[in-house]
């Protein structure tokens, strides 16, 4: 096929641009730099386990920074070729040559970027293979390299081109290096010495123009994977288009015939940069998890539970929830419309629900008529001004973002059953501080089974605890869990497991082992609470690190599914990753526990688990059962806690000899004591008295 003049000109410009690049020393300098960076990064990968390789990407701003600086310098060099060689005007007076030359430089930069992508990805894949990395890492890591390494490199290269064109002085190099640092991920680290405290607002400002990873403090969240959300792509694309539009603006010859193009370009560029900043800002906000988590703790510390007086003493005498029909959309925020079937028993009393305070109520109606409501923290008070009685339909429309680790992006969110994302009968605050360290879910433990229907309007792959029927989910349960993220679902035995894509091997045998877990939970529930609950599950949701809790893994049982918040034992099975203490937590924990000394809680849990094993209720296989003796030794190391250690030792001796009934009685009494939120002194004294009476 014969090429026309324009194609010839374009191809010739590209050909020469490549010849000049290949023949210059810059290419070797760049290759050496890139080789050093790759070797450094790969050597770093070898220090991580096959499951935590993602942390190496997220926590290393250095690779992005090196590429940003390399790219911007390279761009400045490439763009100044003609000026350096004194042939700029010669090409300028050839028709459209300025444009073709600029285009050729863009193509050259694109090719170098492609080279960075291919070599970077291949090298990383080879290292992944050598490290036997989880298969789920490959494609997202390639996307990560593209978004956080290659695109920023290309953008900085383009910026270098523009600055190199606009500036004729040799000062251009220190200036572009300065700019590359400003748009790099290391800004907060560099600013650290000048900051007294790091706040969310400060962090946001540093990160606003950052083209690298947004949170170097974070590790890979196994439920969500890398932060690759569309807002970041939009932000980078906006900046890129803005830069392209800047090209006619940076026309140093200032010819009048470009004036209209320049005005449009400036306007569109500013708009696009603004869009880019807004898009990135949203992601930056979401990424500051560790700061937002602190804010959440402050919120719950600073806002005591509202006092409703007598009105909520017995919710069941005011209303009863008959069922839910939920409609959910995950756009910029989660938009939820929940129809709650109510049986109102007391028309004079307001209807008090628990709903996370982060959701903004858009509309509240009963049987289609607007109804007054108030929000007090996590309490939603529907006034029932029309004094409805009997069966009615409450419709609530609300939108917002779930807190902390429950939301990362429009395609990364978890709405677990133990989090009040739909209005539930009032149970107090949605989250509670666990020993003033981390906010955790205040799990409502007295919910009834009700029919639930859910419809999801969105484009993401969503997992739901209910059964799917005609693009909807339906079922009867005490709670509903929905999730969208770096997750997969696998049938194993009778159980379906929704798990982080990283761990397909670990959940293989989950179905077979789950019966043992349900057995011990049933036993614990019966012995400690005297409840004969039916623990069954068709589905398990495994969300690692969801709570970020020191205490233990968290287990939350619903009628049809279990939510497991576990720190995965990466070499072991799902069941082996579950700390036995979480079974005790799941059946016995109350909010009062947060006021009790942590060692006391642990003594109770360790001792009870050991008792279960000694008595043969649990065979000790599967679940991780922490050794009670080692806890006693640890407490004994603190001279001020000798009394507590002696008490623990007495319990240890007691459970090895006492008969079953007495042991159960003892643990119930111990639990009642903890539930009152007593202090260490009182608990030590009372437990010792109990043991004295038994012996």
């Amino acid at each position: 096929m014969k090429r026309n003049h324009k194609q010839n000109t374009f191809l010739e410009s590209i050909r020469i641009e490549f010849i000049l690049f290949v023949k210059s020393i810059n290419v070797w300098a760049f290759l050496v730099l890139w080789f050093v960076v790759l070797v450094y990064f790969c050597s770093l990968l070898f220090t991580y386990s096959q499951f935590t390789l993602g942390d190496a990407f997220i926590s290393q701003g250095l690779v992005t920074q090196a590429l940003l600086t390399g790219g911007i310098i390279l761009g400045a060099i490439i763009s100044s070729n003609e000026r350096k060689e004194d042939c700029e005007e010669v090409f300028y007076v050839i028709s459209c040559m300025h444009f073709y030359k600029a285009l050729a430089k863009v193509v050259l930069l694109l090719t170098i970027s492609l080279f960075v992508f291919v070599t970077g990805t291949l090298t990383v894949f080879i290292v992944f293979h050598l490290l036997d990395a989880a298969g789920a890492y490959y494609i997202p890591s390639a996307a990560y390299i593209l978004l956080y390494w290659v695109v920023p490199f290309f953008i900085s290269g383009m910026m270098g081109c523009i600055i190199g064109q606009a500036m004729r002085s040799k000062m251009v190099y220190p200036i572009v290096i300065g700019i590359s640092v400003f748009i790099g991920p290391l800004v907060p680290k560099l600013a650290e010495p000048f900051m007294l405290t790091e706040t969310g607002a400060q962090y946001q400002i540093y990160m606003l123009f950052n083209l690298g990873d947004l949170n170097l403090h974070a590790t890979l969240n196994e439920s969500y994977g890398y932060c690759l959300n569309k807002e970041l792509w939009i932000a980078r694309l906006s900046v890129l288009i803005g830069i392209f539009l800047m090209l006619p603006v940076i026309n140093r010859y200032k010819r009048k015939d470009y004036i209209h193009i320049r005005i449009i370009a400036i306007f569109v560029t500013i708009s696009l940069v603004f869009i880019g900043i807004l898009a990135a800002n949203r992601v930056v906000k979401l990424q500051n998890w560790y700061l937002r988590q602190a804010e959440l703790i402050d919120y719950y510390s600073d806002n005591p539970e509202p006092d409703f007086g007598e009105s909520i003493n017995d919710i069941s005498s005011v209303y009863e929830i008959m069922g839910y029909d939920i409609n959910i959309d995950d756009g910029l925020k989660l938009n939820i419309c929940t129809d709650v079937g109510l049986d109102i028993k007391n028309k004079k009393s307001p209807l008090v629900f628990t709903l996370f305070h982060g959701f903004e109520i858009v509309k509240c109606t009963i049987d289609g008529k607007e109804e007054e409501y108030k929000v007090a923290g996590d309490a939603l008070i529907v006034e029932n001004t029309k004094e409805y009685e009997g069966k009615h339909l409450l419709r609530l429309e609300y939108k917002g973002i779930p807190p902390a680790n429950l939301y990362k992006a429009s395609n990364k969110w978890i709405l677990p059953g133990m989090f009040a994302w739909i209005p539930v009968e009032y149970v107090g605050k949605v989250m509670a501080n666990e020993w003033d360290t981390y906010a955790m879910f205040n799990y409502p433990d007295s919910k009834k089974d009700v029919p639930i229907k859910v419809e999801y309007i969105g484009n993401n792959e969503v997992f739901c605890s209910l059964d799917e029927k005609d693009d909807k989910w339906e079922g009867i349960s005490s709670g509903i869990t929905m999730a969208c993220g770096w997750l997969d679902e696998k049938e194993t035995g009778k159980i379906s497991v929704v798990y982080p894509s990283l761990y397909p091997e670990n959940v293989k045998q989950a179905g077979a082992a789950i019966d043992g877990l349900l057995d011990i939970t049933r036993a614990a529930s019966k012995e400690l609470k005297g409840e004969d609950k039916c623990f069954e599950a068709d589905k398990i949701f495994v969300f690692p690190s969801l709570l970020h809790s020191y205490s233990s893994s968290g287990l939350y049982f619903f009628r049809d599914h279990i939510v497991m918040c576990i720190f995965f034992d990466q070499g072991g099975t799902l069941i082996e990753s579950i700390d036995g203490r979480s079974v005790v937590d799941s059946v016995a924990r109350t909010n009062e526990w947060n006021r009790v000394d942590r060692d006391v809680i642990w003594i109770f849990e360790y001792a009870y688990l050991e008792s279960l094993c000694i008595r043969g209720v649990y065979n000790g296989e599967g679940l991780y059962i922490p050794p009670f003796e080692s806890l006693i030794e640890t407490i004994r190391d603190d001279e001020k806690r000798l009394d507590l250690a002696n008490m623990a030792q007495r319990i240890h001796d007691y459970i090895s000899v006492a008969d079953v009934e007495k042991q159960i009685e003892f643990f119930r009494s111990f639990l009642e004591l903890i539930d009152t939120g007593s202090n260490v002194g009182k608990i030590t004294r009372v437990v010792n008295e109990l043991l004295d009476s038994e012996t």
Partner: protein
Amino acid sequence: MDINNLNKMYGKLKALDNICIRDIKGIHGLVGENGAGKTTLMRIVATVLEKDSGSITHNGISWEETVKVRNIIGYLPQKFGMYHQLTVNEALEHVAILKRINGDPKEETKKVISLVNLDDKAESKVGSLSGGMIRRLGIAQAILGNPEILIVDEPTSGLDPEERMRFKLLLRQLGNRMTVLFSTHIVDDIEDVCDRVTVMHKGKVMLTGTAAEMIEMAQGNTWTVSSNEEKSGEELGGVVTDCKYANGMFHFRLVSDKKPAESAVRAEPTLEEAYIYLLHME
């Protein structure tokens, strides 16, 4: 080519002040001291710079139509270079393709290389060429595609006498084929090469005409004066253009619109003296 009422300001500085040069053809020289506005005018004609007002036209093409103009001009800027990593052949072929010239770029490149006498350097790297050769390469790239107008900005400055002579011959040759607009501050170049000349001074045109017309203007204003002591132009009442010492006497040539001394004798002006007369006496 006609240049009419051309004006250009750099901030508050008037670089070109109502420049009018009509009927530019053959080899047209632009002469003037540094800062006279020659390069500004050349760059406007070459479409590198935008004029503030005025017009330039050639064969019905207005300089408002940049694309058309660029197709008919060849330009050698005052400071010329080329990618030093390329050979002469590669560089010229590159320019030939970019200029979208009619005919085979390789053949056309060969022709211009031969025309500028760089055949033996065709495969040499641009970086290894001497200053004179670089200028010839500059001319070669400018005449690729056979432009109607060749714009050469001070091409002879800094060249050794032999290269300068060679270069002037080359321009003379080219003048037979195209309009050459040639700027210099070396008056001798004008005399040797140009058909017509424009003298510029502080952004204004002082004169446009042939070298002979220029000399004619200075007729009667060039003098020789002898003195037994060395004197300055001020003391003599004119601009001294030459001074020789012989037989114990100083023999001055000077340009002055008045007879500088009783003993002064009229002399036949040179082109350089005519140029000085224009700059200082008008």
